[in-house]
């Protein structure tokens, strides 16, 4: 199995507290991995280390064969390491069409152009429509993001990430804040992600994790305590201990 994305012996201390303690993780194309862990396990720090928003004290991050540890966040994105956010980060004054168009323009290195308008480019418009259609957002193409429902904003967030053609996609709680009735749509959208994409989902929602992930990594106190199949995670003694039984019941749902 070829490794597309790898984190090797990553460490980060905050004032003596090891928030990320010797974490090593590898992802292959097509992987659907969930990263879970109790509150304070260091999930957010881990994401920030991977995306380049934080600098690790030691350890390396690889994308393909390249060591990207020292690259800035924007450069990692350009190489195909894309993230979504736990709380939607959208341009509230812009429409879904504009969001996706801008992402495609950026992907093509055209976002710095000072003349022209995306609507004058048929191939781009076609792709925008396809992506919006895929996420059921086509009807909302020209409505400002601030006026669409939160569940749809979350979908747009994933659409935006996808428009950048990621190799590795980090989904930070993709269904957070969405009413139960709408999570099915987000799950369906996640199911349709490109097959060769490596996805690392960070989440608390065990139902979602067990339905989505083929592999689960459990982080506790900055350390990976479990890396294996979803069906084994509930039975694992260390995981049970880390959660103090908090999520043990969730196993029955899976």
């Amino acid at each position, binding site marked *: 199995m070829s490794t597309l994305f790898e984190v090797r012996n990553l460490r980060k201390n905050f004032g003596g507290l090891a928030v990320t303690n010797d974490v090593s993780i590898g992802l292959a194309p097509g992987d659907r991995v969930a990263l879970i862990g109790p509150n304070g396990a260091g999930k957010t720090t881990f994401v920030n280390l991977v995306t380049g928003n934080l600098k690790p004290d030691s350890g390396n991050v690889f994308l393909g064969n390249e060591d990207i540890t020292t690259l800035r966040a924007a450069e990692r994105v350009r190489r195909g390491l894309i993230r979504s956010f736990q709380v939607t980060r959208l341009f509230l004054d812009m429409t879904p069409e504009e969001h996706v168009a801008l992402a495609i323009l950026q992907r093509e290195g055209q976002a710095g152009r000072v003349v022209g308008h995306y*609507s004058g480019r048929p191939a781009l418009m076609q792709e925008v429509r396809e992506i919006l259609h895929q996420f059921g957002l086509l009807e909302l193409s020209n409505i400002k993001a601030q006026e669409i429902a939160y569940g749809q904003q979350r979908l747009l967030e994933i659409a935006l990430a996808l428009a950048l053609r990621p190799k590795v996609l980090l989904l930070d709680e993709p269904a957070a804040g969405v009413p139960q009735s709408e999570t099915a749509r987000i799950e369906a959208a996640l199911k349709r992600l490109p097959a060769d994409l490596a996805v690392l989902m960070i989440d608390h929602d065990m139902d979602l994790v067990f339905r989505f992930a083929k592999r689960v990594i459990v982080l506790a106190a900055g350390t990976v305590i479990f890396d294996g199949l979803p069906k084994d995670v509930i039975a694992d003694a260390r995981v049970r201990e880390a959660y103090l039984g908090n999520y043990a019941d969730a196993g029955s749902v899976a």
Partner: protein
Amino acid sequence: MTAPVEHSATVSPPVIRRLIDGGLIGALAIAVIGAAGYYLFPNNLALLTRMTAMALLVLSLDLVTGYCGVATLGHAALFGAGAYGAGIAAAHFGISEPLTMTLIGAVAGAVAGLVAGFVILRAHGLAQLVLSIAVIHLFHEAANKASRWTGGSDGLSGIMPNAVFGLFEFDLWGQTAYIYGLALLILVFVALKILVRSPFGMLARGVREDPVRVGAMGVSVHSVLLRVYVISGAVAGIGGALSAISTQVVGLDSLSFTLSAEALVMLVLGGTGSLYGALIGTIVFMFFEDTLSAINPFHWLTIIGALLVMVVLFAPKGLYGSAVALVGRFRRRQA
């Protein structure tokens, strides 16, 4: 200004819509209002030309503040750099061809934009505002000290621009200066209209809405802002050059905190984030300034202050922004 969506699949916008977006309507409006001003106030063309130069400064500020969300009280640094650039070229190097002077002003403004942007963009929020104030004072003091080049507090004189295209002399009534300024304003306006709807313009709006998201798209937010600052500097610099050409003198007041603050007040009055707002704010402010200061030379600022308080309290989107919102609400009710 979202029009209600009638059909789901969007067709490419009709030609008329594109012309509106492309600034044709705006350019026509400027030309018509400009012509009206020319015939209504033939004895006041100097004021109208000052308005035009100021409008360029406020447009330039709108790029940085309205489109990118960077609050600055030092934007006259870019205007003054253009004014001194054009003025020094004419007074010391004998470059008196007005188009060349304007170009030099634009370049000087762009360089000042790069410098000011480099400093101001280091910080965020309140620290950014304070840095911008520091920048304008530094520019002001530098111009004051370099009196051999700038004339210091006496101002820079000896600027004698040639005829435009070798045909139109700058006359005593300021007709040529006014028309020249108006032409510049229209050209800049159309160029900015094209800029703000371009992919880069969308990025700039994105930075205002959520810089973190822009970064997560693989764009360096800082480089976007710096580029906007350089473009903004060129626009303000053209305004400064126009001021130098039309008044034939450049004073330290063109590099002042007061001018920076006034420009910001005009922008807020008209409405940030739309080029029309910048123009309307400038016209309304300077019209009030002129008439009120004639009626009551001591208290006109009080009235301007009261007007601004009214706008901020009751029409926070500015005169233009609020008008657009009102029309939008009316239309939606009709639909």
